[in-house]
């Protein structure tokens, strides 16, 4: 089979199962722990297949090569594995969004209430920015929840795209609105500074997760 592009040619003396698992690992991109679990299961399956062939009287070296051939070429089976890695990354990002956006919304509302009081006067622009931030966070949290449900079915590519877009747009709108409110609103002193630091840390974690999800898009097959 070597050289026909169907299986990865093992180096002379190299174990075909190890070579095939390594080639599969190199073809996959995604969360490390999930990838390790997928590869461990693939290796187990290959070892089981080789053992079954040996039990049927096939020579050990031949059994390992045949197990690899029966497993299928990396280019043919990798898409299925990559879908699961994309789904795992998408789930992480959507979970972070579903928790972080409503939590930030609630925290900032409490913070503003504490600073300015519930009946504090505000300018129309400040009120608009406040409502914009609230609505954006709420919708983003709900869309992230919907994405988690949608992930249970089929290819994760469309969900991955939606989560990536949401993960870019929502922080842009929220940070813009927050900056405007910081300029227009009452000054909250240390409490606000702490709020900005926590928000920035959450957004950095979110952006990193979204960037990973975006990289998954390039490696995931179209629908």
């Amino acid at each position, binding site marked *: 089979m070597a050289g026909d592009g169907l299986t990865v040619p093992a180096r002379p003396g190299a174990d075909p199962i190890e070579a095939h698992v390594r080639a*599969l690992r190199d073809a996959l991109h995604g969360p490390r722990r999930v990838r390790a*679990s*997928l590869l*461990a*299961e*693939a290796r*187990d*399956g290959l070892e*089981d*297949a080789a053992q*079954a062939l040996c039990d049927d009287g096939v020579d050990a070296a031949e059994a390992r090569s045949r197990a690899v051939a*029966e*497993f*299928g*070429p990396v280019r*043919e*089976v990798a898409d*299925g*594995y990559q*879908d*699961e890695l994309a*789904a795992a990354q998408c789930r992480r990002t959507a979970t972070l969004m579903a928790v972080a956006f409503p939590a930030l919304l609630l925290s900032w509302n409490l913070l503003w209430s504490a600073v300015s009081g519930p009946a504090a006067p505000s300018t129309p622009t400040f009120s608009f920015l406040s409502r914009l931030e609230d609505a954006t966070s709420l919708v983003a949290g709900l869309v992230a929840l919907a994405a988690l449900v949608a*992930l*249970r*079915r089929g290819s994760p590519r469309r969900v991955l795209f939606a989560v990536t877009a949401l993960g870019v747009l929502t922080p842009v709108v929220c940070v813009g609105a927050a900056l405007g409110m910081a300029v227009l609103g009452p000054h909250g002193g240390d409490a606000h500074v702490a709020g900005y630091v926590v928000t920035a840390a959450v957004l950095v974690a979110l952006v990193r997760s979204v960037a990973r999800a975006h990289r998954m898009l390039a490696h995931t097959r179209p629908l």
Partner: protein
Amino acid sequence: MRGHLDGLILAVLESGPLHGYAIIEALQARSGGALDLPTGTVYPALRRLERAGHLAGAWSTVGGRERRTYRLTRAGKHALAAQRGEWEEFRDVVNRVLGGGSWPATG
């Protein structure tokens, strides 16, 4: 055949939990060796079915080795019943068309 892989996997797990390679062996045995798909496509299909909530998978020690074992969930049983219903309906339609029977009288 690949379009029906999910249903076939659910069917072989109906009788009890199995690990990945045992599922492949069961598929081959129940198909009389006619099911000839790359075994490497079965493992991600198992994870996909787990993601859909039709299977529950967990690592456990089987035969002295760590293996990922899968069992059918309640949702998986419902999905299997639905797939069986759809397949029987499809089979009846194809039988009627390919069977070459006379056209039903109209009017």
